[in-house]
């Protein structure tokens, strides 16, 4: 049996591990379709054959509930943690001071209009009173993966991204990073729902098992390893 899971782009690395672990435990295969949360929601609203949706925030799953694509309320399966990160060997302890100096050129931020990590980064900068000063140096990535590309290819000096980047064992680039204090931004709650399609396609039992699995200790320890904060 196979179910299809639509997963937000920031889960791209960890979803492979979760897939394998879930298969080992239940024998159920998972096809993961990754993309930006906004894209995935537009597709689901227009008949995409996905059984479970793992979003990057809570807003999108809520919208799906409203449009009748899911029966139950979304639950939080993980919380993202924001880091500032660089390919250059610079000391990011005092990143607030550092990023306004000439030592830092371009700064990558996810587009706050559509990516939760971008929203968190701007919030944090706002709290530190740096947002306006940093604007001139900012470049915007469409998704968190694009920000990661900017960081790992070194076209920006620093970038605000998810901790899962630096925890990803597949990532060969040596990175220097510093976690941003979670007090400076609203928690990045990532929500999950089982979709109506699962019922229509007769996958509802398997989908529910995956849903349960995501909230189990096994999944949580994997998520944790990848830098997510688990509830």
């Amino acid at each position, binding site marked *: 049996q196979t179910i299809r899971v639509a997963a937000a782009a920031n889960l*791209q690395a960890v979803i492979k591990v979760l897939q394998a672990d879930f298969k080992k435990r239940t024998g159920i295969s998972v096809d993961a*379709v990754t993309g930006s949360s906004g894209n995935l929601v537009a597709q689901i*609203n*227009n*008949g995409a054959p996905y059984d479970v949706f793992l979003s990057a925030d809570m807003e999108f799953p809520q919208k799906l509930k409203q449009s009748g694509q899911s029966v139950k309320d979304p639950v939080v399966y993980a919380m993202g943690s924001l880091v500032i990160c660089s390919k250059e060997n610079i000391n990011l302890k005092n990143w607030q001071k550092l990023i306004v100096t000439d030592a830092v050129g371009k700064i990558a931020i996810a587009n706050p209009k559509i990516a939760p990590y971008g929203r968190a980064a701007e919030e944090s900068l706002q709290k530190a009173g740096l947002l306006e000063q940093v604007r001139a140096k900012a470049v915007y990535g469409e998704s968190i*993966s694009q920000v*990661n*590309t900017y960081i790992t290819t070194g076209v920006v000096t620093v970038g605000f991204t998810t901790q899962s980047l630096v925890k990803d064992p597949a*990532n060969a680039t040596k990175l220097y990073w510093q976690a941003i204090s979670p007090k400076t931004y609203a928690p990045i709650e990532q929500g999950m729902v089982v979709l109506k399609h699962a019922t229509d396609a007769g996958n509802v039992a398997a989908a529910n098992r995956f849903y349960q699995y995501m909230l189990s200790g096994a999944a949580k320890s994997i998520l944790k390893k990848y830098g997510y904060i688990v509830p």
Partner: protein
Amino acid sequence: MDWLPILLSLKLAAVTTALLLVIGLPLAYWLSKGGGIFKVILEALITVPLVLPPSVLGFYLLLAFSPQHGLGGWLQRVFHLSFVFSFQGLVLASIIYSLPFMIGPIKSALQQLPSSLAQASYTLGKTERQTFIHVLLPNIRASVFTAMIMTFAHTLGEFGVVLMIGGNIPGVTKVASIAVYDSVEGMDYRTANHYSLLLFGITFIMVATMFIINRRNAKSPLE
């Protein structure tokens, strides 16, 4: 590296190019004959999908063909045809997206032909259709090849539309362009490089073969 997306892409590009040839040749011929404001409007409409970012075009196509809405629902009910998250959906989207690249060069090449060629054929009793196939088309072969290569390559590389309306389903809609995109996004640059090189190689061979076939059979012995 997974071969399925490459094969899927080649299939998509081949089917799209073949269908666009069937649609594009008569359409380009009809447009080349000139005419009123109606044709101008149609030509502009054909070009318009080009200016929307592919993913946005894909979004509108998704809305149009969604079984939730009018047209898509009707197609679903009456013909059991679904153009979202299916291979035929990718083909349809690719056709809409690449149409101007097929039509444009063929139409302008046809306009460049002297009208006496067609006239000579008509006096032999040949229909417009026979004339088009046997006289006009062979004399704009270079332009037809160019249009085909551009369409094929463009479909291989098409990404935004396909992602939106196809949804990245392995073996059904996960084409090579999406696979290589995924690899880059996942920072798996090795796989991305492999895919890219392969696409590169396929195009290279294809384009080179076309150009060699397309060279004049022989050079004039006098020059």
